[in-house]
């Protein structure tokens, strides 16, 4: 059954703040095998003009995805979350995420489509720091695959 189009444009309340830690950035950079010193060495980051170590470009997804999950698990929307796969992902950065940031995410449903039995939901997450500065926008396309015919 097609999802309720009236959810398009719905914005959810901002998430509680996520505090970005230096060691979490280090852990993430090591997990993706990225030895760039800007992720682990504050002096190297400062030499590039950053006030502290910065996070790799995709780091913020851990935060925005949690916010997006809240949206797609909204029982009123009725998406079959167990069948959801990640379709597209895009980020637009105002500045890099950095250690010490306290980030909140405001998620909005940008689009709902049904194609060949698949439900496709586009979620935009606006990420702000505690001073209200816009840091990054994340667009996540989630596809709930059609259930197989019984």
């Amino acid at each position, binding site marked *: 059954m097609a999802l309720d189009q009236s959810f398009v444009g719905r914005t959810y309340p901002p998430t509680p703040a996520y505090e970005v830690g230096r060691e*979490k950035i280090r*852990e*993430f950079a*090591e*997990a*993706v*095998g*990225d030895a*760039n010193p*800007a*992720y682990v060495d504050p002096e190297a980051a400062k030499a*590039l*003009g*950053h006030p502290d170590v*910065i996070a*790799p*470009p*995709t780091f913020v*997804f*851990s935060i925005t*995805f*949690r916010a997006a999950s809240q949206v797609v698990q909204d029982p009123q929307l009725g998406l079959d979350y167990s069948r959801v*796969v*990640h*379709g*597209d*992902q*895009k*980020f*637009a*950065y105002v*500045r*890099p995420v950095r250690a010490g940031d306290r980030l909140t995410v405001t998620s909005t449903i940008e689009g709902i489509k049904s194609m060949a039995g698949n439900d496709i939901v586009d979620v935009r997450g606006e990420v702000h720091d505690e001073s209200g500065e816009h840091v990054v926008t994340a*667009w996540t396309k989630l596809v709930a695959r059609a259930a197989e015919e019984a």
Partner: protein
Amino acid sequence: MTASMAYESVEVGTELPAQSFPVTRATLVRYAGASGDFNPIHWNEKFAREVGLPDVIAHGMFTMAEAIRVVTDWAGDPGAVVEYGVRFTRPVIVPNDETGATVEVSGKIGAKLDDNLVRVDLVATSAGAKVLGMSRAVVRLA
């Protein structure tokens, strides 16, 4: 935000140094912990097969994180990336052996934009199949 690569030094078609990124089951367990994505399709073969996958697959976001390294290593400052988007077209299948899988990433300048910005078009493959589609980054050069 100071990329070490100069805008004047590139033109449309300029290729970035290609890189190969290994990914084993251990890599995926580590990435799961670091990212907080513990979906069992990324570490539990039995579960992956039950949901119709040929084997354990890498997190799409892991592949996305590797692909942008071709840009960040080249540009010098990872903070110079202004936009980055991908489509997850095929999974990276990671067998349970010491070799695992390899993600091959190449990139070239797709367009020179205003304000010292360039668009880099990335191609990511694994086992000969394209795993990311429409993979593009916009980066600010010096």
